[in-house]
């Protein structure tokens, strides 16, 4: 195994510029959506006083959770000493920073008063998990940037293991904070559960790795650099493990709720579509989160007949769709189910939509803002790998696999 040689992308091809232009267009439409919503007020979206967090939050929370997961490859190499992943550690850190930037951009631009973001940084209520998250997000940027710097600067390489350990611990706390945004909410039946924090951590492993896999394969295919089969197989199996672990946590969360009588209402709402005319959350849960985001990717990963890149990319793409579905069910489904203000009573009349399943469907500006955040993250990566030495020149097995052995010539 040799020391990897990092090299910027040449980035002068038509395809490279086309990719930047496409991502730039998505960013521009996202910004246009933001200006429209900010100027008119949120009534132009489908968010209202019932569904207060809509599609922008689905994208924002997904990107933030995926950001911490994207750091996994770096953590596995620095903290757990897996040498084969070491050459990819800088890309892992870069992707983590970029995804967090994209997610936070969406979150901030969807605020009622986005120009007051400085207030969020200067006025802290330390009992608020949201306030803690603001510190955790800013800290994540700082720590991962330092970590990346220590990996890229030869003189500081020796400290990168320590920085990597610190970044790993920070990301665990960060995703605990993100999950606890929901876990700490006592009012709503779908939340108010300690398992939200570890569940978000395990789900982040899969979401972050799925995006990472696609970025690696795209970067190496399009730049015509070598990408070894052994590395791909490891990434593929790791994704399978994370998907299975995520499904386990989702199962425990629902089984606990099914056992507790108080939560039967919300469980039959999500799992069976009770009270939901179009059974939208039931469909998004079973088809989107479980089938498309869990079972099909597992089959694609573990089916003995499938070993190529295509099946891995397909599995990774489905995990991303499943992740967005999970966020939709968690965030919007959790709000669509009515608040239990009067246990044992049914609301037969209210001017404020009490006691009914709240209607919601994404509006165009919300979707544009959310996709704009994805584009910001990808644009940052595509730009950074051209100007910084992030990508190893080759990821061929003979270069990076410590267990690599030359194929024996036929006798």
């Amino acid at each position: 195994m040799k020391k990897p040689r990092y090299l910027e992308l040449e980035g002068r091809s038509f395809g490279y510029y086309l990719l930047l232009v496409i991502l730039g267009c998505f960013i521009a439409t996202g910004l246009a959506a933001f200006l429209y919503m900010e100027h008119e007020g949120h009534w132009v979206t489908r968010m209202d006083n019932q569904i207060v967090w809509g599609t922008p939050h689905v994208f924002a929370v997904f990107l933030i959770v995926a950001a911490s997961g994207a750091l996994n490859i770096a953590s596995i190499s620095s903290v757990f000493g897996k040498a084969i992943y070491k050459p990819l550690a800088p890309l892992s850190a870069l992707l983590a920073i970029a995804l967090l930037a994209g997610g936070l951009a969406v979150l901030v631009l969807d605020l009622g008063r986005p120009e007051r973001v400085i207030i969020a940084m200067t006025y802290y209520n330390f009992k608020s998990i949201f306030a803690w998250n603001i510190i955790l997000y800013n800290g994540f940027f700082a720590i991962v940037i330092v970590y990346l710097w220590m990996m890229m600067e030869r003189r500081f390489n020796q400290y990168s293991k320590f920085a990597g350990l610190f970044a790993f611990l920070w990301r665990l706390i960060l995703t605990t904070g993100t999950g606890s945004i929901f876990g700490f909410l006592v009012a709503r039946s779908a939340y108010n559960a300690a398992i939200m924090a570890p569940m978000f951590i395990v789900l982040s492993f899969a979401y972050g790795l799925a995006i990472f896999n696609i970025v690696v394969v795209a970067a190496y295919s399009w730049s015509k650099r070598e990408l070894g089969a052994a590395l791909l197989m490891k990434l593929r199996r790791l994704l399978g493990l994370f998907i299975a672990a995520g499904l386990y946590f989702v199962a425990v969360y629902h089984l606990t709720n099914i056992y507790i009588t108080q939560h039967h209402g919300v469980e039959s709402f999500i799992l069976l579509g009770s009270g939901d005319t179009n059974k939208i959350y039931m469909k998004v849960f079973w088809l989107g989160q479980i089938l498309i985001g869990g079972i099909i990717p597992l089959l694609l990963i573990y089916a003995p007949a499938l070993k190529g890149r295509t099946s891995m990319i397909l599995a990774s793409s489905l995990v991303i769709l499943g992740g967005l579905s999970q966020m939709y069910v968690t965030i919007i489904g959790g709000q669509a189910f009515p608040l239990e203000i009067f246990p044992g009573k049914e609301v037969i009349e209210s001017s404020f939509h009490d006691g009914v399943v709240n209607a919601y469907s994404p509006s165009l500006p919300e979707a544009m803002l959310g996709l704009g955040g994805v584009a910001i993250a990808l644009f940052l990566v595509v730009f950074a790998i051209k100007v910084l030495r992030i990508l190893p020149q080759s990821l061929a097995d003979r270069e990076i696999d410590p267990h690599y052995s030359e194929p024996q010539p036929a006798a």
Partner: protein
Amino acid sequence: MSDDQAINRDRRQFFGMTAAMASLAVAPGVFLSQVKSARAVATQAASDQNRWGMLIDTSKCASGCNDCVTACNKENGISGIHGTATDAQWIRKVTLRDKLTGYVQSLPLLCQHCENPPCVDVCPTGASMKRADGIVLVDKHICIGCRYCMMACPYKARSFIHEVLDEQKAVAPRGKGTVESCTMCVQRVDANRGEEDKTKHRDPACVEACNNNGHKAMWFGDLKDPNSEIVAELQKHGGQQLRPDLQLNTGVRYQGIN
């Protein structure tokens, strides 16, 4: 002009300048101390010697009567703009039916002014706050419009302002992109403190309207004053919280929910 005259002129100018600069330096201080003393009067009102609360007798709350809602909207300048899904509602009427007995009743629902408000816990900037006298408010100057308080409130008491507002009431400033809820007509509560004649004290608009129309289903008062009417009524007939399991110790209590 002799040298002495020139020196005197310079001295006069010097003294004049010094006096002007001293005035400039001192004036803001004098002005600010006046502002400070004016503020001191205002902050005196929110004392933890009081805990403002309400009691609602649902058996007296008439089905179909909306006077409390109308009065609140008028007092605080709330009006329908883009429909019930996005319009602000600080108080609303709700009709309930018991799932077992089928008993139907009607009641007003508003911010419960909890002692331990979840909206205050979750607010990242501290814009959601509880005054010393128990009234839960939103500081519109530092609300960033994240809506986390709306996620956290068990009573759905809060509204987000979804559009530009015109013609606001001076007593109830509101703003696009911020969250708001019932203030217990804090403008009236604070005005009462300067009025020694208790017969001139005004109840919140909803309570006043309910009394004026003769239903008398709502009481407002100081839960810490053993001589107040609301405490007497609570001691006589009790009063329950909504979602008592959450142990928020609400400042709004109900009678007759069964």
